[in-house]
């Protein structure tokens, strides 16, 4: 288990500001954020590679803030892996064990075990210069794993890999993590990568923690506009509450010249989001209920492989994600008039 309590660190103008997270034993936790948000710095604080300004770091309930990196029990795989270029793959993996003064038998056994788990036995004699990105990644992971760390920190471990290798390596990291029950923090800026491995995630922006939760929660119930945008939702609107719905827990909100029903009781101005995949599109104007129905025009469509993104112009400018089947069924061309239905239960009001 690893926990930080109001962890702060300053470097120049940038500050990690009171970051508190808790990762339970055996959990796969992801730290998300755009480049420059302080993710790597946060990992370096956990490793003890920089001195924190204030706050606490606990590993298995022991305060490690003032301990040297070597005794914290952390396995660290930095971005670009930092394999020692003067050592072979095998010596890289064995490095920590040699430093600890383990016997040759122990070193050999543990290196072979790690190599077997990560399927890199054939790479052991190779120089790290000739290894591919995926192979380097596995060697770096093996180097961290042989030390049997309490916590594994992975800094953008697959960002330099191609899409296919990335998926393969992510699956392998996840499987090893589950197999060993390792508490893991995986830093990334890639949503697909995080979805494929993480139990929970935190979003960091400009050194501040924005939200912590399960991936689905971050997706459906973002705490603020930044999290919404980071989770790729562009349908963010601001409106004025016009009426409370009688006999209902919904509120009517005036936005873009139309009244929308949004869930919950609210007052004044509110901000809300509509997930792009929750927007229902039809070319039949009379379909669905009368509420939250907008007449829109298709102005752009882009195929992203596993979904089609459509941009819609109307009282509210919307972006929707449709499956290929749903898009084909619409038989829609550019400038086609469509009906967009925004179900109240799929509208999320931002708390701020």
């Amino acid at each position: 288990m690893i926990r930080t309590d109001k962890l702060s660190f300053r470097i120049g103008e940038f500050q990690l500001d009171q970051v508190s997270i808790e990762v339970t034993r055996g959990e796969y936790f992801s730290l998300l954020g755009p480049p420059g948000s302080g993710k790597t710095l946060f990992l370096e604080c956990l490793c003890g590679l920089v001195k924190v300004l204030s706050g606490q770091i606990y590993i298995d309930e022991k305060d490690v803030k003032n301990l040297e990196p070597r005794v914290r029990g952390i396995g660290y795989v930095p971005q670009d892996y930092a394999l020692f270029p003067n050592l072979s793959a095998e010596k890289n993996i064995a490095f920590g064990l040699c430093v600890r003064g383990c016997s040759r038998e122990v070193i050999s056994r543990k290196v072979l075990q790690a190599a077997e788990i990560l399927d890199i036995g054939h790479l052991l004699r190779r120089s790290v210069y000739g290894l591919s990105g995926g192979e380097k990644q596995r060697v770096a992971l093996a180097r961290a794993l042989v030390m049997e760390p309490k916590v594994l920190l992975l800094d953008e471990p697959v960002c330099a890999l191609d899409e296919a290798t990335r998926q393969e390596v992510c699956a392998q990291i996840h499987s090893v993590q589950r197999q060993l029950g390792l508490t893991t923090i995986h830093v990334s800026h890639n949503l697909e990568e995080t979805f494929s491995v993480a139990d929970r995630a935190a979003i960091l922006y400009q050194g501040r923690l924005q939200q912590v939760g399960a991936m689905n929660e971050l997706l459906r119930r973002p705490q603020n506009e930044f999290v919404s945008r980071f989770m790729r939702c562009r349908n963010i609107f601001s409106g004025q509450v016009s009426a409370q719905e009688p006999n209902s827990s919904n509120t009517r909100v005036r936005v873009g010249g139309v009244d929308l029903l949004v869930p919950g009781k609210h007052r004044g101005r509110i901000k809300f989001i509509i997930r792009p995949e929750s927007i229902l599109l039809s070319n039949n104007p009379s379909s669905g209920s009368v509420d939250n129905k907008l007449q829109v025009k298709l102005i752009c469509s882009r195929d992203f492989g596993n979904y089609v993104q459509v941009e819609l112009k109307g009282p509210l400018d919307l972006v929707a994600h449709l499956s290929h089947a749903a898009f084909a069924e619409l038989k829609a061309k550019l400038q086609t008039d469509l009906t967009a239905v925004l179900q109240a239960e799929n509208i999320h009001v931002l708390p701020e």
Partner: protein
Amino acid sequence: MRAHPDSPVSSRRSHIFTAVCFFFLAVFATSVLLLIIADILYIDKKAVVSVLTSSFIRDALWLSTWTSFTTTFISLLFAVPMGYALSRFRFPGRSLADSIVDLPIVFPPLVAGLTLLVFFSQTALGRWIQEDLGLEFVFQPKGIVLCQFVVTASFAIRFAKTAFDEVDRRFENVALTLGCTRWGSFWRISLPLARNGIIAGGILTWARAFGIFGPLMIFVGSFRGRTEVLSTTVFLEQSVGNLEVALAVALLMIFIAYIALLTIRLVVSSSMVKL
């Protein structure tokens, strides 16, 4: 000239650029070779025999060799920790310290000799070192090493700093998380990775120490059999009109220096292949 297999496809204009680069390389290399050939043509057999058989030249050669290697060793002893400190640590006065390291490089060598002479003969601390501690440098062989060190150590330090600058700090960070102390990460990771740069600095230091002349004449003089090194032999011989002997000694120095540089370069490049 055949292009290297990994050279990019190049146009006629690129060939002109390559030709210009090679032109300057050829002019420089040819000029140096012509100067050496001129020396070789000037000397006669008698001068060569004299150089190879005379005992004072053997003494000067031995003195030049051991002092220059001792200086290189001491310089590297200073250069490695100093280069690491300047590369890795942020401390008050770091820029000042960094500039002071470079100061002896811009010193005219004669000034270095003069300064040392003034320090050891005119200051209380200098006299105390010489007289009370018994560490005599002025007009002594020890002074040769001190003089060479003052003039050349900066090269070793500068090269060491640059070599450590080029070692990615993340290697050290990972080593720290893998159980190393700061010393351990330096010894096991940074030093091996910076080795080639440090050796290059050592080569330059040795070459400069081997050929140094001006400050030695002032600080230790040129006493035959005691403080005379090869470079001062060249000066002494030419000043009494033995130009052939002076040139023969100079050629001997060039030959030794070339063999030493070539050997070290081969050792370094073979170790780089092993990396």
